[in-house]
């Protein structure tokens, strides 16, 4: 990895005696879109606030372009934040809000004016200079907050669940715009969210967090296709997770049968968990299926049907299918060997990556 812009080295954080971050290590490369994804209380916002300078680590070091930054106050860091509640100054109008940081930098009046206009153009709100903050809609406030942050030309832009207050349609629009903006500006974005769909759609890299730890990092595709453990598999997308054992390399045993798979590197007969995504399962007649389930319910969701059923051992299966079936019927399920993903119990990211590397070349 070439010169990371931000590095966390062995960072821990405690509030009173409650640990919120447990020995976090990671590196952030310049110019990419990163997402910290996790449920509330996982420590993702704490990481963001540490990068911004609103919190100090209890122990460990934060490096920015190779130099320690955790002792630098927030106002001296070349980093800007977009807050969850936008934090626009209500006593200033739109252009005064955007000019706030520029005035502090002693930029000349004409330069400020040009910069404000440019930033507003970036967020497609040209001509809004003299609007009052109170007179803006939620989506417009969001854009002004973005304009205010990018006007300062930060090296890193932090986004703290910025889309969570918007309605579904607006959120989708802003996702597209944020992604486009990041690619146009080339600024490193660090985005915090608990919405896995948002994370998958936007990011170059995702850090999945839970309980003060980073469980897995990787591209959206890696994390979706090869979740490291039960938590990640369950948190990212829908999934069927059933227990099984590893008979041999490339052969896994569940539902009283051996199935061909594409994972290897475990001990013989090691207990594992099997993940199959609902969209990878296809329904066929009972005798043609690789396994059989009894259909318990069927929900029409517009694009497809969500079908749930149970197998002989009473494990629940969710299937997303564009074809209708009948509740109560026994049906067969078909899937390909590469649709099966195997997770070991208690495997950490390092050994997981090493094991994958050992047979994936």
């Amino acid at each position: 990895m070439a010169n990371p812009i931000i590095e966390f080295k062995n960072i821990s954080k405690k509030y009173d005696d409650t640990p919120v971050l447990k020995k976090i290590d990671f590196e952030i490369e310049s110019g990419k879109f990163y997402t910290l994804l996790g449920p509330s209380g996982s420590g993702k916002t704490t990481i963001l606030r540490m990068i911004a300078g609103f919190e100090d680590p209890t122990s460990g070091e934060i490096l920015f372009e190779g130099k320690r930054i955790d002792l630098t106050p927030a106002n001296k860091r070349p980093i800007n934040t977009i807050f969850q509640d936008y934090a626009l100054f209500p006593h200033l109008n739109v252009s005064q809000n955007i000019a706030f940081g520029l005035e502090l930098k002693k930029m000349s009046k004409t330069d400020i004016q040009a910069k404000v206009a440019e930033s507003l153009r970036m967020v497609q709100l040209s001509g809004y200079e003299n609007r009052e903050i109170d007179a803006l809609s939620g989506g417009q406030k969001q854009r002004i907050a973005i304009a205010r942050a990018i006007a300062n030309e930060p090296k890193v832009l932090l986004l703290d669940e910025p889309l969570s207050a918007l309605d579904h349609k607006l959120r989708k629009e802003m996702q597209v715009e944020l992604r486009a903006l990041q690619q146009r500006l080339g600024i490193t974005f660090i985005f915090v969210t608990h919405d896995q769909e948002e994370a998958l759609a936007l990011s170059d890299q995702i850090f999945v967090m839970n309980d003060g730890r980073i469980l897995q990092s990787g591209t959206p595709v890696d994390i979706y296709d090869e979740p490291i453990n039960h938590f990640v598999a369950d948190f990212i997308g829908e999934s069927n997770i059933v227990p099984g054992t590893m008979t041999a390399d490339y052969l896994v045993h569940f539902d009283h049968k051996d199935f061909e798979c594409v994972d290897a590197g475990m001990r013989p007969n090691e207990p594992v968990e099997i993940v199959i995504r609902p969209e990878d399962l296809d329904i066929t007649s009972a005798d043609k299926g690789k396994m059989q389930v009894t259909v318990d319910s069927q929900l029409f969701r517009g694009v497809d049907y969500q079908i749930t059923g149970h197998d002989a051992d009473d494990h629940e299966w969710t299937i997303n299918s564009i074809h209708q079936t009948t509740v109560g019927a026994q049906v067969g399920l078909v899937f390909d060997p590469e649709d099966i993903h195997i997770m070991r119990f208690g495997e950490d990211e390092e050994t997981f990556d090493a094991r994958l590397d050992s047979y994936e070349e």
Partner: protein
Amino acid sequence: MEMQKKSFFMVPYLAWIALFVVAPMALILYQSLFDITGHFTFSNYTSYLESTTYLKMTFNSIWYAFLITFFTLLISYPTAYLLNRLKNKRLWLLLIILPTWINLLLKTYAFIGLFSQNGSVNDFLRFVGAGSHQILFTDFSFIFVASYIEIPFMILPIFNSLDEINPSLINASRDLGASAWQTFKRVIVPLTMPGVKSGFQAVFIPSLSLFMITRLIGGNRVITLGTAIEEHFLVTQNWGMGSTIGVILIIAMFVVMFLTRERKSKGGQSR
């Protein structure tokens, strides 16, 4: 039906306004148009405007009210700011509000005890070898006691406006490169201006018509419009002149209210 119900509930309010706001003001205005012998005249107003004594008194009132408000603000703003950062801020605020529940007259008498020739303050001064001083019946003691009494009324609105500031605005200011002082100047002060304005109204307007403290603590050396009104009604029995000064005082109050009103200009405030 709906309208009738609504207007029914308006009755107590309207009765109150009519009896205790409109009627007294109308009476004062009416009284001010009669001289001491009961003849209709504008002479009260002309003599008020021509008399240097009254004009000086008016100026005095405004000047002292301004000083009291100024010192009150000087003490209250930092106090409210610090209170707001304390852990049990509501409790500390309550402790500051507590003395307002004690009768004003009692507190004033307490200061006579403290400030008199043989009072605690002079005792202490003599003890440290500074000798005794005339504290009571001075401008200093008047402004000191008046400020002491008014401070809670200034702290409360400022405290509330500080309390209402969204903490992420402070973070945003720091994030955009402002130092702690710049954040205070550019974000905290403008956002607490409504609190300062209400505090100003709550202190300045009553201070204009103070009369008891001017008598008991100021020893009649400080004569304000309040003192003059009391004098005219109780001593000289010139109700007409007293009412005239009352009208002037009411006008002064409206002027202050107008100057400190909430302004929301289009296109943002200029800085």
